[in-house]
């Protein structure tokens, strides 16, 4: 077998990231148009119109902290502050939980560091009745929708108050009351389910839409194609989001085809409108989501949104990113940090300052600390109490059939 390095005429091509550990980070592939470069589209525009910018980047917040361009959602200061608070809270929570995992308090954890705006801003642009089908990196939605933090922690430490009775891995939240669909450990499965949910909503004549999120790596799954096909064919009121944070565990976006075309452009072949968005720009994410939601709600069908961002932390508590990417790659990330950028914007508007920011951080850290204290009072994975052991036999079926009943008796519970 010929063992040719890339790009020869013999041997197939295996894409490689611009930089590996020890090499200089290189993000020259990220094309940074200025705010305003992508025009705002009419809500009922032809999908084709959006395709022109499927490789572009919808941006609102300039690096000078000034908002501009067609897509500026022109939010009130209070709305902006609320997003800032939520992004920051998500980050503070993640930080603490990650540490607690290292201390053995839970079996597993996953942060959303550096991409919190993707979840928070989208959630704020949706209605609370809209059903979200997130992946494991949109915990920001839960904060945005006001889920009780103690409940979230109780899930993560699998204690007696875990609303999922200890059955799911940490961070695989489910919150029916908040229209937050159960996160699956299996990638992409929820993408076409979201389309089905949205179709049901339309069939019932209801106004709620659905939104789902997957990562760049996950776009390779067959279910991605299933979702886009269904969404296109039935014009379902759904927003399909690809969070391109550049990495899928150790493989960069090129292994999913990201070097050949943007993930947004995948929508072109299905005739779906596509928006490619600066994911670290909360205002741009908000505006794009709002547009897609309005479009869906007014009967024009689905939109594919790619948010371009960067996974600031390891994939999960189980891997060391220093083994596959330059250690300080995040520092070279050209789209900056969503928290800092929104903060700068607010400071620029004169409604915020470093002092208030520090105070907020301190308060949030304390809030998280206290919440965890309370959560622990309901037990931890290691020490218990957990949900009753017998409960592992519940909810397999509506009623416990004979064979499961026998097994419960076998276990003596």
């Amino acid at each position, binding site marked *: 077998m010929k063992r040719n390095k890339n790009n020869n005429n013999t041997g197939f091509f295996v894409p490689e990231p611009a930089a590996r550990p020890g090499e200089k980070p290189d993000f020259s592939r990220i094309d940074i148009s200025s705010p305003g470069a992508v025009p705002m589209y009419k809500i009922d525009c032809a999908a084709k119109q959006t395709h022109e910018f499927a490789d572009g980047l919808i941006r609102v917040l300039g690096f000078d902290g000034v908002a501009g361009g067609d897509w500026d959602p022109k939010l009130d200061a209070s709305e902006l502050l609320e997003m800032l608070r939520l992004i920051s809270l998500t980050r503070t929570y993640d930080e603490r939980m990650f540490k607690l995992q290292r201390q053995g308090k839970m079996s597993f954890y996953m942060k959303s560091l550096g991409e919190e705006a993707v979840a928070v801003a989208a959630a704020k642009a949706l209605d609370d009745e809209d059903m979200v089908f997130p992946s494991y990196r949109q915990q920001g939605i839960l904060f945005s929708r006001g889920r009780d933090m103690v409940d979230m922690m109780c899930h993560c430490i699998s204690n007696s108050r875990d609303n999922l009775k200890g059955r799911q891995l940490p961070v695989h939240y489910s919150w029916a009351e908040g229209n937050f669909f159960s996160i*699956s450990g*299996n990638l992409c499965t929820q993408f*076409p389910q979201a389309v*089905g*949910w949205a179709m*049901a909503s339309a069939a019932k004549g209801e106004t709620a839409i659905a939104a789902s999120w997957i990562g760049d790596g996950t776009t390779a799954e*067959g*279910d991605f194609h299933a979702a886009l096909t269904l969404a296109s064919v039935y014009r379902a009121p759904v927003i399909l989001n690809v969070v391109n944070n550049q990495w899928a565990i150790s493989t960069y976006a090129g292994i999913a085809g990201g070097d050949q075309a943007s993930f947004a452009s995948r929508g072109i072949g299905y005739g779906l409108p596509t928006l490619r968005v600066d994911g670290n720009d909360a205002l741009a994410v908000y505006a794009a989501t709002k547009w897609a939601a309005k479009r869906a709600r007014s009967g024009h069908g689905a939109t594919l949104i790619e948010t371009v961002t960067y996974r600031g932390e390891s994939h999960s508590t189980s891997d060391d990113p220093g083994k596959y990417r330059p250690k300080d790659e995040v520092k070279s990330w050209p789209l900056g940090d969503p928290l800092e950028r929104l903060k700068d914007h607010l400071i620029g508007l004169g409604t915020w300052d470093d002092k208030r920011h520090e105070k907020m951080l301190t308060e949030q850290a304390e809030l998280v600390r206290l919440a965890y204290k309370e959560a622990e009072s309901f037990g931890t994975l290691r020490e218990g109490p957990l949900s009753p052991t017998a409960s592992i036999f519940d909810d397999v*079926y509506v009623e416990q059939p004979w064979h499961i009943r026998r097994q419960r008796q076998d276990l003596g519970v």
Partner: protein
Amino acid sequence: MARMTMIKAINSALDNLMQRDETVCSFGEDAGYFGGVFGCTEGLQAKHGLNRVFDAPINEAAIIAMAIGMASNGLRPVAEIQFSDYIFPGFDQIVSELSRIRYRTAGSFTTPVTIRTPCGGGIYGGQTHSMSPEAFFTHIPGIRVVMPSNPYDAKGMLIASVECDDPVIFFEPKRLYNGPFDGDPHKPALAWSSHEKGEVPTDHYTVSIDKAEIVRAGSELTILAYGTMVHVAQESVRVAGVDAEVIDLRTLLPYDMQTIAKSVNKTGRCVVLHEAPRTSGFGAELIAQIQEDCFYALEAPVVRVTGWDTPYPHAHEWAYFPGQERVIRAIKQVLEG
């Protein structure tokens, strides 16, 4: 009451369901306008509208995922998979999603989906239109697996399946769609109109999806069968002239162990039939449980009569299909054993 084929009975079940419950909808490949390649959904789109009965793209994962999403939003979808041989692109959505959503959400999301799919051989369908994949599904906690053997049960069980809050895989033995089949391809084809189980009420009724049916009471041995093999069993018993108790399992997960154990404890001898390959087929599960629950009553090894451990061959269909000859041989074997 009316005489119906199994196709008509299924059609009637869907029609009744859609009439009574506006959340019921039905879709699949060619299952909208055309009414399905076997005609099970014929006329339903015209009657109930495009949003309730419609064609789906050729993607079995998409079909099942769409059903899951709809069910989680209050609908009762009935998804058709054109042949059960083609269910595997959607297997992940069943194993990892459909079967577990109630469990992993502690009951806060539920997905009452029914998946209808024709299965089994006997129609010269070759290896991709003849599979009996039911055993795979019986190893998935959280779903129900059922298979009727006649029009009356098909209608009643389909209504019960759709009305059940658990997800159900509803297998339709395609060789029985138009008439009973006793395993002898040389006899002229029979029609359901000449069979008492072809008598089907036009109105709503249910048949339990928890209970097996003793289709022939007997004392010498127990024969466990489902789908097409129920008819093969009955005819084989007649030909062999033995006093066998023939049980139509009807439901495979959970299966009705009470009825099975009672019979085997009485007869002490048992033959298990299925069309699917033998190794790790559903017969294995039945036997494992029987020897556990009826060990001291058993007077001979339980014998399996099954399809072979090969893909389903096209031309040699009748060398593959577990017909009367093999069943009769097994009956003799357990009686002598």
